[in-house]
């Protein structure tokens, strides 16, 4: 009954396990060399200016002015230090801690930003750069969380795009009708869940290949929302497509932290829900009974079955939960970001979220970081474009996608997903 007898998205065939070994070290080396050549060798005269404050900050921070060449040298030194650390850790067969690539990446980004904006007239507002990255990443993060849960329980979730879109549409319509944001939010979750129900029902009950269902659901939801948008929403947009909007809430103390405070803690409820979601899913997956059972079902359904865990039920409810979470991401688009639904408003975010799931190795925190990286690259291209960049816009628009490919090919490489993801469980 299944067309795709092979494992596709979820279970990556891994003749060998994680083969990170020396490759990562090489990447450090190569990137460091590039940084050295570009940032120091081709240093541009002048300074780069970074704004740290937002207009409404409590404490107004001064602009940071970085001299092009000196910053390049410092960044190169940090990069070299990171490379050396990586080599040493590798030598001693130690695990590479997560902070190392983060420090390395941050250093390189600072270097790149400085280099690219040295001598430009404009200063780069850092909070804006980071805040925009977060804004672009929010739907991706929700989608990725849904993806992680779904795939961890053994159901490949290609339908994230459909879940986001259904959430966006339903959230907008219901919030418009009821004038209640909370009801809209719940409706978005329900809509995402409904899409998941279909995925779960077909994948679990009817054993249809999960990738088929996912792909088809995306088409179905896009077709349906387009159809209803044109025929129902547009003629009655005042009643059906003018939802209220979540307004940002500043968290007292935290939002006063320089630079990061306003970025992270002057946000809407949905974003706070997202923080909670990342933490809850992470703790839940790895520290609770729920997570243990969920992962067991995704890794070895038969083993779970033999200890009395209902594989179908666990999959069904968790896939539904995943849909609800993705639905929240859709609601962000139409209730928090821009309060109205427009056709195909997700425009591919679900696919990027899927990439983030895999890129993040099915780990909620890493997937979140992957989504943030993508958001950052998207926003960076825009900011660079504004500040004045010699690169044609088409190439800037490619930037986030190229960055993702490089990251996946270079740093992540062969990743192993939940062993049973994509495979229907047949008892016996």
């Amino acid at each position, binding site marked *: 009954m299944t067309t*795709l007898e092979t494992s596709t998205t979820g279970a990556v065939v891994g*003749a060998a396990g994680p083969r990170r070994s020396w490759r990562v070290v090489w990447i450090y080396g190569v990137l460091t060399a590039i940084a050295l050549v570009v940032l120091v060798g081709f240093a541009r005269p002048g300074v780069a200016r970074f704004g740290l404050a937002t207009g409404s900050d409590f404490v107004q921070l001064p602009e940071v002015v970085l001299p092009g060449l000196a910053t390049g040298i410092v960044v190169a030194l940090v990069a070299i230090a990171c490379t050396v650390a990586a080599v040493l850790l590798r030598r001693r067969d130690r695990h590479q801690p997560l902070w190392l690539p983060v420090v390395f990446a941050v250093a390189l980004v600072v270097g790149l930003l400085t280099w690219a904006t040295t001598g430009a007239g404009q200063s780069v507002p850092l909070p804006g750069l980071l805040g925009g990255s977060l804004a672009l990443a929010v739907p991706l993060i929700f989608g990725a969380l849904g993806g992680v849960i779904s795939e961890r329980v053994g159901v490949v979730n290609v339908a994230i795009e459909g879940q986001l879109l259904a959430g966006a549409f339903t959230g907008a319509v219901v919030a418009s009708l009821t004038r209640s944001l909370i009801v809209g939010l719940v409706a978005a979750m329900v809509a995402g869940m409904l899409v998941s129900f279909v995925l779960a029902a*077909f994948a679990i009950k009817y054993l249809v290949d999960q990738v088929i269902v996912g792909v088809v659901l995306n*088409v*179905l939801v896009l077709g349906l929302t387009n*159809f209803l948008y044109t025929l129902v929403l547009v003629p009655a947009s005042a009643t059906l497509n003018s939802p209220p909007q979540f307004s940002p809430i500043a968290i007292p103390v935290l939002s006063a932290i320089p630079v990061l405070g306003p970025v992270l803690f002057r946000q809407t409820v949905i974003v706070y829900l997202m923080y909670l979601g990342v933490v809850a899913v992470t703790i839940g997956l790895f520290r609770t009974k729920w997570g243990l059972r969920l992962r067991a079902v995704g890794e070895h359904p038969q083993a779970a079955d033999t200890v009395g865990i209902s594989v179908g039920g666990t999959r069904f409810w968790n896939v539904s939960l995943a849909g609800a979470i993705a639905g929240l991401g859709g609601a962000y688009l139409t209730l928090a970001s821009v309060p109205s639904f427009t056709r195909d408003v997700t425009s591919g975010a679900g696919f990027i979220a899927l990439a983030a799931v895999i890129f993040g190795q099915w780990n909620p925190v890493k997937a979140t970081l992957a989504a943030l990286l993508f958001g950052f690259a998207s926003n960076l291209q825009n900011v660079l474009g504004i500040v004045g960049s010699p690169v044609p816009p088409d190439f800037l628009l490619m930037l986030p996608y190229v960055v993702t*490919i490089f990251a*996946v*090919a270079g740093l992540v490489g062969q990743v192993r997903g939940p062993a049973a993801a994509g495979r229907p469980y047949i008892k016996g």
Partner: protein
Amino acid sequence: MPVAETGREPQGLEPGQDPQQQRPERPAEHGARRVLREILSGSALLSVLAVVVSLVIGAILIAVTNPAVIQASGYFFARPGDTVSAVLNAVGGAYGSLFRGGLIDFSAVGFWAGIQPLLRSLGFATPLIAAGLGIAIGFRAGLFNIGGQGQILIGGAVAGWIGFSLPLPGPLHLIAALVGGLLGGALWAAIPGVLKARTGAHEVIVTIMLNYIAFYLLDYFLNTPVLQAPGSNTPVSAPTAPDAVLPQLFGSPVNLGFPLVVLLVLAAAYLLDRSSLGFKLRAVGENASAARTAGIDVKRMTIAAMVISGVFVGFAGAYQVLGQTTSGFSTAFDAGIGFNAITVALLGRSKPWGVFWAGLLFGVFQNGGYTMQAANAVDLNVVSVVQSLIVLFIAAPPLVRAIFRLPAPKGARA
């Protein structure tokens, strides 16, 4: 004697007998015959019913958004007959147009005129089949190629560029453009293949990203003299030179692309069922470690599968610019085929002739949809809703059986 016989003789099957009563496999059976047999077997009924259910759901969408129906339902309790007849009018009209526009127009004079719609549908089916074959070959090798869009864009752009810029004579021009398209698709598909083989990068991520990159790359070149029509300032290419256009056959709406895609189906069937390469691809797709142990170079097969997949998808791209939008293309000439091809491949169960029929069905729906929209003001999105429902229902026979309360087939697993 310590062994106590119970004296009962086991009544089970002979050891050599397979209990499963499966149909004997006939690997050598000819493709078209096998398809025919599959259609005539029990699952054909289910497929028809799946289409019926999907059309019914589509009909509900059409009816509830139809102005006449909405109007009549306003006084439903006074005159329910009006609502019913409005529904029948709306749905009957829409599906009548779908049939008339996609398959056969019985109101047309003469056989030739009557099947014009079908012939036009073949034109829409052609790229879907070609790209669907490419995706299916990827599936069979265990690779999920979501990059159809990018491969079509690059393949088509190369074909188009050859088609309008190279001064080649006669048929050579067409051949060169076609080959260029195939190579362009292959090249773009080779990237995820090589990255997967070399670094293990997941093809799903890479192909998604390459779709976007191809789009912006094409956009860039459409704004430069490389692709932009001379003297124009719109990002639209120059028209394909007449001798690089796929010629119409016998004055019908069908062009050479369709016979070529039939050849592609045969080639794919041959590749998968009859060739050494296909055998190895399938082996890698089914069990990569066993293939490796048997001396098959898994990495090379990964690259080969992606390249071949890209060749087929590239044909769809070439077809788009040499047969469909021959008067110059923009960034949108992929027309969603890259994604629809996934659905087509899935509906066709990744088998070449299955893909062929699935592509044909989608082509008919697409073409009929235009007439439905023009004649009955039914939004085109209904078609994609119905198409996706068909795939879902066909994939889940038990559901269709449950809907129609059909008995489960004998010997179904517990």
